[in-house]
């Protein structure tokens, strides 16, 4: 049971959503944008989230788009992980979504919610970072389309009142050869011990991680190290020296164990994408 009352709004347009949010904010209602609701519902019942008003974005047409437009794939922020998986429009993103939580939750969790949520893993952001996706953000002054790299640093840097409308990805990235490895402590349906996602673009490997550190990231320095022309173990050691922060050490696994798993996973990933024998 959610132990507090809240108002519920379901605007039909982007402008209306922004406006309602602003009004509710002015009234001190601590509004939250609402997508699938899996985080809000589960955290509200344990007093970890509080709000007096929810603004549900699922009624906004732009947020429900899932289609190719010219040479770009446009995915609305309220499209669910299941819809993405079943469409096969972006197989890597679909596969990642199909390993987040369980199937029941995947039918609720939205792309926007997973990217902008509070749980630290945000695994769907990984392929978007590798694809240099664009992100459409709505705010009181309208909409802006920016590179994800500009607004994603450890987490999505949204200002109060802003929400994700869409994610736009060049079609080419949806067809790249990829590796997606999700390692868990043991149980398959769990937070990642680490999720490693890699693609090969222009003969170079791009790679991003979740669960390895306290935030998801793509590191150019690590990519450069891994793409060097040297022995596999040298490349991996180099890459590890460029980790953006310390490796996570928590109940899913110790930092030492994560490092062991990471090394092994990197070897397999590079071998897969480069073809056996290249190392």
């Amino acid at each position: 049971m959610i132990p507090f009352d809240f108002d519920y709004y379901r605007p039909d347009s982007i402008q209306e959503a922004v406006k309602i949010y602003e009004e509710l904010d002015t009234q001190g209602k601590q509004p939250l944008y609402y997508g699938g609701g899996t985080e809000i519902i589960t955290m509200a019942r344990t007093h970890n989230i509080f709000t007096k008003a929810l603004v549900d974005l699922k009624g906004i047409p732009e947020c429900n788009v899932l289609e190719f437009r010219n040479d770009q794939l446009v995915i609305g922020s309220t499209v669910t992980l299941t819809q993405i998986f079943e469409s096969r429009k972006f197989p890597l993103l679909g596969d990642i979504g199909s390993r987040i939580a369980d199937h029941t939750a995947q039918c609720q969790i939205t792309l926007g919610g997973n990217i902008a949520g509070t749980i630290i893993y945000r695994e769907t952001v990984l392929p978007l970072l590798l694809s240099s996706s664009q992100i459409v953000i709505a705010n009181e002054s309208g909409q802006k389309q920016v590179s994800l790299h500009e607004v994603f640093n450890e987490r999505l840097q949204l200002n109060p009142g802003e929400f994700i409308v869409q994610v736009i990805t060049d079609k080419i990235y949806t067809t790249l050869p990829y590796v997606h490895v999700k390692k868990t402590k043991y149980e398959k349906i769990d937070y990642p011990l680490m999720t490693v996602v890699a693609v090969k673009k222009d003969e170079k490997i791009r790679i991003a991680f979740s669960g390895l550190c306290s935030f998801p990231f793509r590191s150019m320095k690590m990519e450069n190290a891994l793409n060097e022309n040297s022995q596999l173990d040298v490349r991996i050691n180099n890459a590890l020296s460029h980790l953006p922060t310390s490796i996570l050490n928590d109940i899913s696994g110790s930092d030492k164990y994560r490092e062991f798993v990471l090394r092994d996973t990197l070897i397999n990933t590079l071998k897969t994408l480069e073809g056996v024998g290249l190392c």
Partner: protein
Amino acid sequence: METVGIGMSIPRKEAWDKVTGTAKYNNDYIIPGILHAKLVTSTYAHATIKSIDTSEAVKAPGVQAVLLGKDNSVLTGTIIRDCPPIAIDKVRYYGEAVAVVVADSEQEAMAAAKMIKVEYEPLPVVNSVKEALTPNAPLVHENLHLYKLADENIYPEANTNISHRVKIRKGDMAMGWAESDVVVEGSFYLPQTDHLAMETRNARTQILSDGQVMMASATQAPFEVKELIGNDFNVEEGMIDVKTPLVGGAFGGKAAVHLETLAYIASKAVDGRMVKIVNTREEDFITSPCGIGLEAKLKFGATKKGLIKAAEITYMLDSGAYADICPRMAKAMAVDCTGPYNIENLSCDALSVYTNHPFVTSLRGFAHICYAFCIERIMDKLAFTLGIDPLELRLKNAIGPGHTSPTQVKTTLSNTGDFKKCLEKLRNLMNWNEGNRIIQDNNKVRVKGIGCFWKTSNSPTDAESGAILTFNKDGSINLNCGAVEYGPAMKTTLAQILAERMNMDVKRIRVTMEVDTKTSPRHWKTVASMTTFMLGRAVLNAAEDIKRQLCNIAGIVLKCEPEELEVAGERVYLKDDPSNYVDFKDIVHGYKLPNGNAIGGQIIGRGSYVMKHLTKLDPETGQGRPGPAWSVGAQAVEVEFDMKEYTYRVIKAATVVDAGKVINPKSARGVITGGMSMGLGKATREEFKYGKDGAVLNTSLRTYKVIHYGQQPEYVVEFVETPQIDAPYGARGIGEHGTIGIPGALANALSLAVQVDLDQLPLTPELIWKTKTGGNT
């Protein structure tokens, strides 16, 4: 005639209700005007309560009462009266209730609970059994020696954290060691885990103006609820009524009396109005009792040929902050401490130890998973040391007729079953002879491990059951007994036993699913895999009672002696001429003569059973008879292990159990299979983790992981049928047994795979990696 009795796989009586969602559980009833209780729980594992500020909460909307520990100074406990319903002065575990809010709605109760401010002063934490047993360890209960004991055979050790110690002394240890050519030792650890019943624990209570206490609870022990509440609060037992409908899984966790006490004091605080209390999953994890943890040390001696000559065992059970049933689990481990092996020289101490962890109660297997894990690992260590096949070593030492149990009960085929036959069957099922470690491609190795069990029950020596049979006008029978139906189809089993004895269609036997302590005959508790045995006996007695009554009245109708009659197909007929008969429907509510006169009256059957020949254990040697019989079995798992990644996949799990007689084959397979699944969950991933401060770190299903659908290996179940002579049709208890040997079997398989001893649970890839490599990347 459709005789459907025992040996038939009929669907459970409540199957249609369950699959269509019609079945009702305790919290499914919406009751107008009911009040809701919510808990404020401790955020410390061990701390003095300095102050509790309820001023805001009592003024909050909808709040009817706020209860604190000092409002009820009673101490509760089924064995040691050590537990205040709400913490007084200090908290002893993370999640312990420190206040209860009663409000008009659940939402208001939650909101007000949030307003209560508790100030704590942290105390040194006892964060493991090892810490608890260190000299000068902080005491979880300073006044242990002052507590009243609800069981006379309990020996709390003053000024320690030991609530009870069971000693087993058998044979001559010096001789045993002298005869041993090899000695193996091991230390073992199993974490506390949870029951994870789908239905979280919940209860409601109303106290009527004449003093009647009306309770409804999702419990395995409605009669114990009324007895304990009666004792604790000085209420005449007959004034308390406990109702229990279908229960949504229990696994031992609903055998403890916990929320019922809170619901009672909450109702009392609001002039007897009806109050309900329902655990969230998080509360069910840590506030209500979980399952035990264990630390253990074992030392076994054996001859070169593999005969075990001596065993020295110390089991230290993590009871958490309160004793509840843990002392009896220490006893249960002690009486079966060797596993199903004959060991003549034996010394075992089993200790129930307080810590600042959540307190524990029974959990499927009643601590037998823990002893079996240690014993089965030791057996494999011994097999490895001696170079003997693990299955052969078990056969060599298998318990059998003419041996004695740890508590010196003479074992017979009837009271123990045929363990060797189980092992031989398992050998074939697992294709054991192909080898138990087979190297595959891609760094994989396929391995097999064995884990065996035996289990007897540890009820009070006078545990009892009863059954009442009534007839409908059409001749069908109603069966009313005090067992709670929480999943294993025990009421259907009882109907089958009755149908067999009455030689009639089991569909014509209606069972009363819910229990009402006012109208159902008392049944000790629905625990310990004893329902089929105890209630089966009571039902058979009741069947004989109605058969006698039926033959008496039919003898008048058919003008013959009752002995000349037989009962079948809802008729009473002459043995020498079955065409001469009278139907049940014409006699069960009196027989009406052609002139309208009636004779005989309604037939009501009654049957009861009380345990026979059980004794207390001798405090120095443990000698005594704990239960009526054992169930034995052999289990194995087959695993594919990745030697590079230290990950693995369970391919197959198998159980051969001596069931005595299989009453309902599909139900029996289901129960054993479910047990194996639960065993795999415990073996692979389940554990409570604690911070340095004793706080539980994984209090929700986000982080406490259980086995999910789609992750099951192939399950194989086979039965051996060696009748237990005094059991209904020879049937032995099998409810818990599927879980017991599986963790040991998995640890044995993985230890063989990675060639290192894996002596703790859960067997995560990280644990295996760390044990093998020392944890260096």
